[in-house]
């Protein structure tokens, strides 16, 4: 991505686009990766509440997956899951 020069940046260091954190992929910071077992998941959404990176994807009240572009692999979801359907595995790249 080409970065803008000082003359082209908005005044005061503000960010004029909402939700721009989406463009910043933090997924590659991960050393461990959460693996979710869809079949056994009860969609209690405890993981959704605890996830510090808003990386638990939910639709119509049901968990649908993990946003690996932004998940940093902290493992809180695995720790908090009451039915233990999220497991942490070593990231393989």
């Amino acid at each position, binding site marked *: 991505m080409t*970065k803008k020069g000082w003359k082209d940046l908005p*005044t*005061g*260091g*503000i960010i*004029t686009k909402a939700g721009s954190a989406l463009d910043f992929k933090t997924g590659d910071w991960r050393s461990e990766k959460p693996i979710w077992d869809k079949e056994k998941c009860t969609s209690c959404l405890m993981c959704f509440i605890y996830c510090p990176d808003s990386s638990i994807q939910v639709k119509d009240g049901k968990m649908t997956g993990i946003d690996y572009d932004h998940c940093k692999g902290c493992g809180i979801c695995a720790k908090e899951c009451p039915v233990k359907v999220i497991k942490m595995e070593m990231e393989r790249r």
Partner: protein
Amino acid sequence: MPRRALTGNEAMAEAMRQINPDVVAAYPITPATEIVQIFASFVSDGLVTTQFIPVESEHSAISACVGASAAGARVMTGTSSQGLALMHEVLYQAAGLRAPIVICEVNRSLSAPINIHCDHSDTMGSKEAGWIQIYAEDSQDAYDSVIQAIRIAETVFLPTMVSTDGFIISHCMQGVEILEDKQVQDFIGPHRSAYSLFGGAPITVGPLDLQDYYFEHRRQLMEAMNTSLTTLDAVNKEFKQKFGRGYDIIEEYKTEDADHIVMAMGSTCGTAKVAIDKMRAKGVKVGLIKLHVFRPFPHEQLKKALSKAKFVTVLDRSDTASSMGGPIFVETRAALYDQMPKILFADYIYGLGGRDIDIEEIATVIEKGEKMKLQGKVEKPLDYIGLRE
């Protein structure tokens, strides 16, 4: 135009009433307390529609100001000395966020030893914070400059402080010509800011800015400072044209034929004018440059104004412990480094902690300067006025 008997503090409070800012957050400190105390009574009497936020410290006061400014409000506060020092880190944030806040400042020394009287140490401690700094000579100047400051700040999006000399001006009553409320409102116009949290589309204010962008944003700030001189000049010209009085960035007093220039800021300029009249009566070709704006430093204007000078006597009401002399001296000399032929400079630190400076003392250093000018040599580039050895 009606003249009213007002102290410096009353004049600044009156300007604030006429400006009617959206938000004022302040904490009291001598000798600036009266400004916001009087303003608070305007709030409680319903003479303004300002949201007044009493806070528990100056750090909180300026923080609340930054928040309110980001929300798109026209914001003012008042402070002095230790209060300005306590604001220090947030002053940089206000500048970096390009929040056009205006502070009515009253110059007072910094502790220790504790002292409540005038010198310029407090605002000199903030001179690198990215704020425009205007130094008023008297109550009239303070009143007019506060009104101008709103326009300036909201044009270049830089916070601005206007200061008066503590007690000497803040508590001295004199006649002040007061504009009509409508004239002030028409002059300042509606509030303008670079952005607003309530401006429509959502924005993020104050995000982390690392190696990749911080430098560019600071460069923007530098550019705003560089170009603000044009705005300062334009706003003053408009004020002058509308109301018949104004304050040039550097005011020249009897400099036309002068080869010896005295430089000063604040109330001392008025006293120096009398000393200059006195020396001129003796045939000394001396003039005064009143530095009305210290930030941005008007180096180009000074180069021009000092182009015919052979000797410059600088009066500094603060010492920044650089061991090279006071800030006016250091910066003016730097500005004139490339100038040929070389100008001789002598710096005098005076008036720390409110020590009086009188006409005779200024006349004496002018005489000393005349001697050094003839000798073509400065014996002591840094000396003191009114100091016991």
